[in-house]
């Protein structure tokens, strides 16, 4: 469904990504893991059109995306839930969700999608009129994910959904991510919480200093010695 082929991405003069390739198949849950500053966010921002790769291509269901503006990418069915949630904090919960279905296609099925989101996150239904900025951190993350789903994406990219949240809430959120994936939405999960991400996903890519250094079956990576050593803290010393 999504193919990222050999992209190089720069922030100004600084090169952030070298020759990055990755792939997400229809309905698959893939995670992208790596340390702070490795380039995870840069990858998802390049896919969503916030950044433009200097070379290489991004192809989604046969369409090239790498020169398209973000709203076009959303229209085609890729939605990014950004790091730090990026909710519209001065607007109500409902307004946030409504803006999620801004695209004409998703606007038509808005009420059904809204039902689906409320089913996943019942707490949002109780808070529809509340100003989004007054929600707790966990609720804000739920809102951000729900808002992303409102566009009816084929691929949902989640940039560090567990960031700064209490372990119990992280568990709930990961549970919902699983459920979303079961409903047929492909997911590209960016995480620093490596163990949780690997346990959840089918495949994973590991990125270091702007390069994909390892990829494969998530279960395999979980038992890989080098991964254990660098990311799970359980390797033999």
């Amino acid at each position, binding site marked *: 469904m999504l193919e990222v082929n050999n992209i190089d991405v720069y922030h100004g003069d600084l090169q952030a990504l070298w020759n990055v390739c990755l792939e997400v198949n229809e309905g698959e849950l893939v995670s992208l893991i790596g340390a702070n500053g490795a380039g995870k966010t840069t990858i998802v921002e390049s896919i969503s059109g*916030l950044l433009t790769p200097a070379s290489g291509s991004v192809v989604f269901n046969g369409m090239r995306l790498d020169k398209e*503006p*973000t*709203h076009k990418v959303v229209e085609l069915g890729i939605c990014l839930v950004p790091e730090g949630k990026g*909710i519209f*904090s*001065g*607007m109500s919960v409902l307004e946030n969700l409504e*803006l999620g279905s*801004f695209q004409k296609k998703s606007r038509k099925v808005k009420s059904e999608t809204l039902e689906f989101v409320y089913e996943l996150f019942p707490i949002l239904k109780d808070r529809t009129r509340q100003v989004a900025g007054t929600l707790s951190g966990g609720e804000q993350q739920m809102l951000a994910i729900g808002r992303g789903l409102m566009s009816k994406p084929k691929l949902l990219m989640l940039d560090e959904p567990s960031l700064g949240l209490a372990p119990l809430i992280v568990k709930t959120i990961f549970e919902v991510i699983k459920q979303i994936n079961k409903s047929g939405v492909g997911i590209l999960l960016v995480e620093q919480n490596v163990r949780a991400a690997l346990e959840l996903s089918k495949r994973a890519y590991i990125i270091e200093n702007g390069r994909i250094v390892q990829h494969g079956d998530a279960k395999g990576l979980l038992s890989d010695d080098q991964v254990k050593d660098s990311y799970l803290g359980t390797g033999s010393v």
Partner: protein
Amino acid sequence: MIFILVAQTLVNGIQIGAMYGLIAVGLSLTFGVMKILNVAHGEFLMVGGYIAFWLFTLYDIDPLWGLPLIAIALFLLGAAFYQLLFSGLTKFHEEIKMKNTLLVAFGLFLIFPQIARWLWTADERAITPMYSGESFPILGIQCGYVPLCGLVMAVVVILGLHLLLTKTYFGKSVRGTTENWKSAKLMGINVERTYLITFALGAALAGLAGVLVGMTQTVTPDMGMPWTIKALIVLVLAGIGSVGGAFFAGIILGVVESVSAIFMGPYTVALGMGIFLLILMFRPQGLFGKA
């Protein structure tokens, strides 16, 4: 007698203040949404005034009937100027964007009066339909038709704008873009188009205010900057981001000016600047802004 003086002053103040509010709302919109301080806002107001003057003297069109025409004309003019001069700058980093757009807008402020002098000469123009000087008495107060029309129009426009921003998908996308343009993009909002329409809307609001100024005062090539400054004072008074707030702040300034005119005469202009400084020092978020 004193009651009539106070009431009359209040009525005058509210009527002038509604005009201030209308001008400030346009400026507030462009600044809030795209962080462009359009110091050429008053120039759009001037153009609106002159178009109304043209419509009235050349085609005998009543300025109040001409309002929709002028709004459309200024909307298109604003859209054209945005596309031509500002759109290329919005992709830059916030600070560079702010500085460069400020320079461009300042350039417009230098050019517009010259063009106006060439098109309409430096003479003071006024739009004077038959009813312009007339008024009717109510509870002993004289209420002019034109200022009353202006007040009604300003209230209608502001209410319309409020409904647009809170009830429509487009309006919500404008507010979303104001709060977080990156997230707005990720929601599939064409932020560039939102900017274009918002800027054009700001120009249209300025144009409408220009008609009112033309009917109650005069239109001259150099009128732009004083009105921009007035709008800035109101904007600082209100705080950024609230349409209703900018409107009420306009009315507050109008009333304060009218009341102080009784005691201070021509020094009321300085009073506006004094308020500007005091607000910046002691309540920089404005009266209605969030801290």
